[in-house]
């Protein structure tokens, strides 16, 4: 039998997801994912920074190496077509085109460095052009960005939510390290991108971690105590300890140990802390020496504040009240697994959200649609062209500045929420609507990837070790001991760095803790034969 296959790939900031499909039957055959991104760093700006500092080619090579490994784990031959999706930075790294235009804002830096923003319209390239290992030289479909900063990932959430074709006003947010937001009012689309990420994904939280075994991913209230929900080795949720969050007292021991807390866990803790009036406690105790500090709470608050301020800015710009929005769509893995009722209470989505759709990974879903029907690419370009107008750059928006400074006042200075609401009115903005008590929550699938095929999902190890040696090193081990992700190890006189684990240029605790000033981070990549 002459079977032919297509592949869809979503390149996300926290990992790669790929699926294969039988092109005759359109059936999903296999799914493979990674739990990491191959580039060091925990957010897309870190990836960008890495590419700028170390080199775009090196970044591209690391990325393609990981993607090829994922494809090989799909266990198929006769690949005929591949489609990808992701944000503009990931797709540019994939396509190996100019990315520096995404690193700077304004004309000055671009002019000075002679940067010409490339076209990010939809295109079809050959796999050989970018070092994609697909057996034969096959067509690779790259969907268009809507606009400079609003990428194909945002287009995917618009397209897959089908919100553009519904006669209602809706808000669609893809919760990643960056939140892509789109508000549709009477058919018109207003977009924005809120850089809220780090805290929400666990970064900048003292005990924060990406979703991985032995992390707290949710917390539920049991009487006056908190029940930890912990990811096991296969990333299923299991019961952890029952804890008194005020004292850390263990009320009931659970099965799994906790080593950190994920973004969704952080949101759960934040929400419960509001309920229980713990927002001003110096420490909120979770399981096994995992805790949240006052600073953590403030950081989470500010990150959530960026969502709320972004949503309000969009609503003010499009002249709609938040509670006039008919439906709210939450895309992305963390938008899928988070408890939507908590999101609404803590301001991640508008408090008045009455119809909430958790639509999962829309990037992969759109890539699948493309690979099964390549003509869709033209249609997507047309959609993208038509919604190119109303992008609101939050960093330069006066509305956002005013509202975000209220968030800062609240989470940094303890300004009461009632004063926050007063200020909104004082500025002439709308009041925040009351919390919807009985939202209708539509979770369309069981997992963020709707159909993973007959075979179990394969988790692909993309570990990538870079090795180097430093002059003047006295082997005090401070760098290794201070690495928050255990990405660094010493092998004789050589240091091994796991690129995929490393938090990258946003962290550099290894460099900072080196008393000899001997640790040169870039050297892993510059003088390494590994690339």
């Amino acid at each position: 039998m002459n079977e032919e296959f297509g592949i869809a790939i979503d390149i996300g900031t926290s990992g790669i997801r790929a699926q294969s499909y039988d092109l005759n039957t359109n059936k999903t055959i296999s799914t493979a994912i990674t739990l990491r991104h191959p580039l060091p760093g925990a957010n897309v700006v870190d990836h960008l920074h890495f590419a700028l500092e170390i080199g775009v080619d090196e970044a591209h090579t690391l990325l393609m190496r990981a993607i090829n490994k994922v494809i090989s784990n799909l266990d198929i031959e006769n690949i005929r077509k591949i489609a990808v999706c992701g944000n503009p930075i990931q797709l540019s790294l994939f396509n190996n085109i100019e990315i520096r235009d995404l690193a700077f804002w304004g004309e000055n830096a671009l002019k000075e460095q002679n940067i010409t923003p490339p076209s990010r319209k939809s295109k079809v390239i050959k796999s050989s052009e970018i070092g994609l290992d697909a057996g034969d030289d096959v067509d690779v479909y790259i969907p268009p960005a809507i606009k400079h900063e609003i990428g194909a990932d945002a287009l995917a959430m618009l397209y897959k939510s089908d919100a553009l074709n519904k006669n209602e006003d809706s808000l669609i947010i893809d919760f990643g390290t960056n939140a892509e937001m789109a508000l549709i009012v009477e058919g018109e689309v207003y977009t924005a991108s809120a850089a809220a990420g780090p805290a929400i994904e666990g970064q900048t939280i003292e005990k924060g971690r990406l979703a991985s075994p032995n992390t707290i991913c949710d917390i539920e209230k049991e009487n006056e105590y908190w029940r930890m929900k912990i990811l096991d080795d296969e990333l299923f949720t299991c019961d952890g300890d029952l804890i008194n969050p005020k004292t850390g007292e263990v009320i009931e021991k659970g099965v799994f140990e906790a080593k950190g807390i994920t973004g969704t866990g952080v949101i759960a803790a934040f929400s419960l802390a509001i309920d229980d009036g713990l927002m001003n406690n110096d420490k909120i105790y979770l399981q096994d020496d995992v805790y949240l500090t006052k600073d953590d709470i403030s950081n989470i608050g500010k990150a959530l504040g960026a969502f709320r301020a972004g949503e309000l800015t969009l609503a003010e710009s499009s002249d709609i009240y938040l509670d006039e929005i008919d439906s709210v769509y939450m895309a992305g893995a963390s938008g899928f697994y988070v408890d939507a009722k908590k999101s609404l209470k803590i301001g991640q989505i508008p408090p008045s959200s009455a119809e909430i759709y958790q639509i999962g990974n829309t990037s992969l879903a759109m890539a699948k649609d493309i690979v099964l029907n390549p003509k869709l690419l033209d249609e997507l370009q047309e959609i993208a062209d038509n919604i190119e107008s109303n992008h609101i750059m939050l960093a330069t928006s006066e509305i956002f500045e005013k509202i975000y400074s209220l968030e800062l006042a609240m989470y940094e200075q303890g300004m009461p929420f009632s004063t926050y609401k007063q200020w909104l009115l004082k500025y002439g903005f709308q009041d925040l609507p009351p919390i919807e008590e009985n939202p209708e929550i539509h979770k369309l699938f069981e997992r963020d990837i709707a159909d993973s095929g007959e075979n179990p999902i394969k988790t692909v190890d993309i570990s990538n070790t870079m090795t180097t040696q430093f002059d003047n090193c006295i082997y005090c081990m401070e760098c290794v001991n201070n690495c928050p992700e255990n990405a660094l190890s010493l092998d004789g006189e050589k240091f091994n760095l796991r690129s995929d684990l490393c938090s990258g240029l946003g962290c550099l605790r290894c460099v900072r803790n080196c008393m000899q000033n001997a640790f040169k981070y870039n050297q892993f990549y510059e003088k390494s034969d590994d690339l």
Partner: protein
Amino acid sequence: MKRFTKMEYDNPDEMVFGFAKHPVKTKYDIEIGAGYVNPIIKVAPKEGSEKSMESMVAECKNIAISACQRALNIGLPSFIIEQEHIAQQTANPEWAGACTQAQVEVLEKFHDEYGIKVALKATPADIRDEEKGSDYRTSQQYQNVMESVEQCCENGASIICIETTGGKSVSDYGISRGDPRAILFGIGVLGSIDMEFMWEEIVKICNKHNVIPGGDTNCSQSNTAMFLAGGLLDKDCSHTLAAIARGIGAGNSLVAVECGAKGPLKDCGYENPIVKAISGVPIATEGKNAVCAHSDLMGNLIAGICDCWSNESVYHREEMGGTTPEVWLQATGFEASLMNTAIQTGEEKTLRDLYTLTDKYRDPQALILAYDNAYRIGQAIVEHGEDPYQRSIAAALEVGAIIQEAVDSKKMQLTRFEQDSLDSAMRTFRKLPEDSAKFIKRSVRRYGRKVEDFDPKNYEL
């Protein structure tokens, strides 16, 4: 319909209890607002009596007899019975007719025998269901309301009143969530639209039978805010917001008068001092002698410029001092006597001022109903009298100004919660569009989705 665009009174000091610019005269020699205050007794039939028309009629008759006997025993020159329907009476218009007839017969007999001045005020219930697709304006319930009005008129009622409930779904939403726009839309716009619709019909029926079309009240809306606001230590609804709802409610209750209601306006309309200041019609009010029904913070103040003084409502039952019609008529009757004594001795303005000052600074809700402040709110309303939406905003802003002045002059203190909700509402109102069509369009869209029972079709929107 002619909207009020100027005040019937030249200044607040002209207003006093027992006197209205436009007194009302009806059969059995009674006059209202013509120089004396009439006590009102209102008693609800006891539970179980709604089982049949016969038991209901007997119940009503007993209530009337008790009231008349006590009136004679304590020497009241005049009094009014209000028969406020329970749902079953209005739902069965022939019951309404029979109950009215039973009470009128009793009143007429006592009037004929002793010369006591009496009146029966009949108040059918607004039994319409406000929900989506309920055909508010044509449903069987609507027809029963109007048929009951007709029956009460035909069977001898002197005065017809009603408590219409238009806009309640939206204002309830606003009151429970602290949303000032919903309060304004529900009371000021929807309530006004519905009251106009209802009263054009009611006035027609009353005129046909030569019965006095009395008046309406914003009870179903601003009293909801008042009850939720509760006492000083309750916080379910801010007292400043409840005061604002009351101010807006005045523009609403005024609509009945604009449609031809002559007074006395319904007792539970705490906004009535404002309506009287604007229109000069006699009003009924209730306060400290309505504690059998509910608690309020303006027990004396609200008597300041009333024409009838009521007990609101009480179940028909035994108290130690007699049956409830006896006990509570005695309470309202003696209070009316005090007012009438003041009038006879020329001290009515002093008593009015004392009533007012006992409660003026007890609470913002009382403050704005002090007759001088009520007059100010009236002025704000008539300045924008042509447009129910705009006059609602004007009333709300004036309420805010009055409260703020009292705070600034250190006569009253507010909590942070009260002050914040006041500031917040004032800012919201100042920001609203001038154009009522724009506001209505937006609100229909907004609350059409948010409020389950609100159907714009019920208001022809």
